[in-house]
């Protein structure tokens, strides 16, 4: 079998001399023991299994409601215990600080008064919901579930790329990928003590129920989904099933007397906690977007009265803004008195005139993003853009400098991936999932996304990305 290591950036499995790294040796020799036809037979099995089980996401834009499977690459990504320990500690620290920050900007606004981050930058974000000021959720937890995207640079350092504090998705694929690999390549697990992840739904349930306004009373938990046409519907349904929760859409809920009920065959039934998988803007047409058909009129009032738990709390999105991200190292130091354990990518903020001037003069070497968007929309990849594209983008930027941030292009790490009959290096990232219940916990590993196209940096599922099982090795082993 042919193995082609990455030559440009950091290769997860091979060192600079092209020799397998220690923690990949056993895996590589195991995979070497399979014949090509054996591997291909098993690949067919796993693909069939995804299709039959309907593990799909919906693609927008094409023919309506096209269901696609998220391609799965069976070569697992391995994270040694020591590396993971550092990543985990960094994430716990970061999520703790994020919550202190959100509570602060909706409360006393000390960080703004102390000039740690410009007040205007925070308060002008559309994710900052003025109506939620002075409304502190129980125990100050805003982000019950966070998905933080992490990449590795050419030295192999783990860097935070962004935080998703609203409705991070992908955890269903983490669990399904593990199931799939267990079934299709059981041999791979014989040589590694891989930390288990299958209890995540229970942990998630416990975490969410902590948001219940009347705890101990066997609270009713629902998962609020935009519905079957949403791209992540499989995940909503999967998590509801795995947690034993009820999957609801906005039209299933009704607010009366500032209490939330669902419409059932036996009349109305009280709801205590909503794990909402719809954005703030679509939660409640009375409080946010008036044209929203997905929302539940009166929900925010019920929340204000303390009669319903919402996870994540509305307004939490202010913390994953791309301009706020640039200030995270300072915010961590401000709230926790510690240096950030996980470094992040150097970021220029258009809000600061000096930064903007630098951005304008160096567009050709930068990756520029708009602060409001996510999922790669509204982005400029300077090093790959034409002069014309760059000029057009610069003209856009001048209209609203504070709407933009820029970062140098980070050479993503690469990982052996079975493509075209060989193990070729393809670029990857990592999205760990962090739960904030009684304390902050991190699911070992997370979702490793892989850009299946040669040379590509884009790992998004809608643009030719796939995913891998992610193994965190148990401590004191190997």
């Amino acid at each position, binding site marked *: 079998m042919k193995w082609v290591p990455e030559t440009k950036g950091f290769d997860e499995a091979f060192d600079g001399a092209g020799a397998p790294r220690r923690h990949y040796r056993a895996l590589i020799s195991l995979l070497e023991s399979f014949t090509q036809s054996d591997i291909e037979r098993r690949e067919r099995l796993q693909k069939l299994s995804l*299709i*039959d*089980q*309907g593990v799909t996401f919906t693609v927008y834009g094409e023919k309506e409601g096209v269901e696609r499977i998220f391609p799965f690459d069976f070569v697992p990504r391995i994270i040694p215990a020591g590396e993971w320990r550092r990543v985990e500690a960094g994430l716990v620290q970061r999520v703790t600080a994020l919550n202190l920050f959100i509570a602060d900007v909706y409360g006393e606004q000390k960080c703004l008064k102390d000039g740690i981050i410009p007040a205007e930058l925070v308060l002008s974000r559309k994710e900052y919901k003025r109506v939620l000021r002075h409304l502190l959720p129980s125990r100050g937890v805003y982000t019950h579930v966070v998905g933080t995207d992490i990449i590795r640079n050419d030295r192999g350092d783990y860097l935070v790329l962004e935080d998703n504090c609203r409705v991070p998705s992908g955890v269903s694929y983490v669990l399904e990928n593990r199931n799939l690999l267990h079934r299709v390549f059981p041999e791979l697990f014989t040589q590694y003590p891989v930390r288990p992840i299958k209890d995540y739904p229970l942990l998630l349930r416990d975490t969410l129920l902590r948001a219940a306004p009347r705890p101990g009373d066997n609270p009713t938990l629902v998962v609020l989904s935009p*519905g*079957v046409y949403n791209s992540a519907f499989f995940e909503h*349904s*999967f998590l*509801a*099933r795995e947690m034993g*929760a*009820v*999957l*609801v*859409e906005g*039209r*299933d809920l009704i607010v009366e007397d500032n209490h939330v009920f*669902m*419409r*059932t*065959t036996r*009349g109305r039934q009280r709801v205590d906690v909503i794990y909402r998988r719809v954005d703030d803007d679509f939660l409640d047409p009375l409080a946010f977007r008036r044209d929203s058909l997905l929302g539940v009129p009166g929900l925010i009032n019920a929340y204000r009265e303390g009669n319903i738990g919402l996870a994540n709390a509305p307004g939490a999105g202010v913390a994953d803004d791309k301009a706020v991200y640039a200030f995270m190292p300072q915010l961590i130091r401000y709230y926790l008195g510690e240096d950030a354990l996980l470094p992040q990518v150097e970021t220029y903020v258009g809000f600061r005139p000096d930064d903007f001037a630098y951005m304008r003069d160096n567009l050709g070497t930068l990756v520029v993003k708009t602060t409001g968007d996510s999922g790669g929309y509204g982005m400029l990849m300077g090093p790959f853009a034409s002069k014309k594209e760059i000029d057009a983008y610069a003209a856009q930027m001048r209209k609203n400098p504070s709407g933009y941030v820029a970062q140098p292009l980070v050479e993503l790490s690469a990982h052996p991936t079975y493509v075209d009959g060989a193990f070729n290096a393809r670029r990857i990232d990592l999205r760990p999932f962090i739960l904030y219940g009684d304390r902050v916990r991190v699911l070992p590993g997370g979702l490793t996304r892989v850009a299946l196209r040669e040379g590509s940096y884009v790992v998004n599922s809608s643009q030719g990305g796939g995913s891998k099982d992610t193994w965190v090795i148990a401590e004191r082993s190997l």
Partner: protein
Amino acid sequence: MLSRVADALYWMGRYVERAENITRLLLVTDDFATEAMGLDEDLAHAAWKDLLAIFPAAQLTRETPPYAPIALPYLLAFFADARNPYSVSFSLRRARENARAVREALTLEVFVVMNETFLALEKWEKKPPADGPGLRDALTSMHRGLFSVVGAIDHTLPRDEGWLFLQLGESLERLYRTAYVLRAKLPGLLEPPAAGELPLQPAQWRTLLRGLASLEHFRKVYGTRLEPEIVVPFLLFDPQAPRSLRYGADAVARCLAEITGGGDAALAARLTGRLAAELRYADPKRPDADSSGLLDRVADEVAKIHDALEARFFVT
């Protein structure tokens, strides 16, 4: 349970039952038409045409070559043509859409086997088998797929409210369809045969019984005597044949009683109770005199029961 989920499960039950009914009627009609073709071409054609009365909103949407066998347009339209609202394709697609929307209310086994059956059908939609034998083969394997769905439902679902709504949909659809099948077939069969036309009558009665999946049961009880005085009361009032009207009304009534806990005076429960009582205590000796009136009444009542269910449970 959520009204929306109950609604989806009810329709999933109806659509799975409908897909199975269409599949079975296609296979049975094809057998009869092949047998009758050389003896009485009109009768063979009429058997196919009856499908348009049994599924009144159905459409023959496929173009077929002018000299194609008469079975072909019917087989194509009712099997893998998603544009015909009474095709297997259309019904199974709806069943699967409902299942996907309420996946968390089903088991993995039910969803997987439903999905597999649906994906096989999608392949036939794209490239339908070209001739009768090919279509028959596909239909037979579709029939097995549908039985697997029903089997997975039976073996893995908890007997909770969701299951009751699935059963309710299935029973109601079955009762409704039996009434339509009998309404389409009985008048012709009960007409006194013209001289020299006799040989196909037993085949028609046999086909009717097979079309309602009751031939073997009938034989066990009555032997081979395919006489109208026996077959008609059997299909209307037999307490054990799963597709007799009486059994169907009882099944709907049982589901409703369990869903409402018995003490509910809901309109749907009252309508069903009255219908079940009429069928239970009807005089089996003289059904043919007014059977067409009875069949119309059953079809109307079932439609009313459906409306009452919707108002009581689904739109809340």
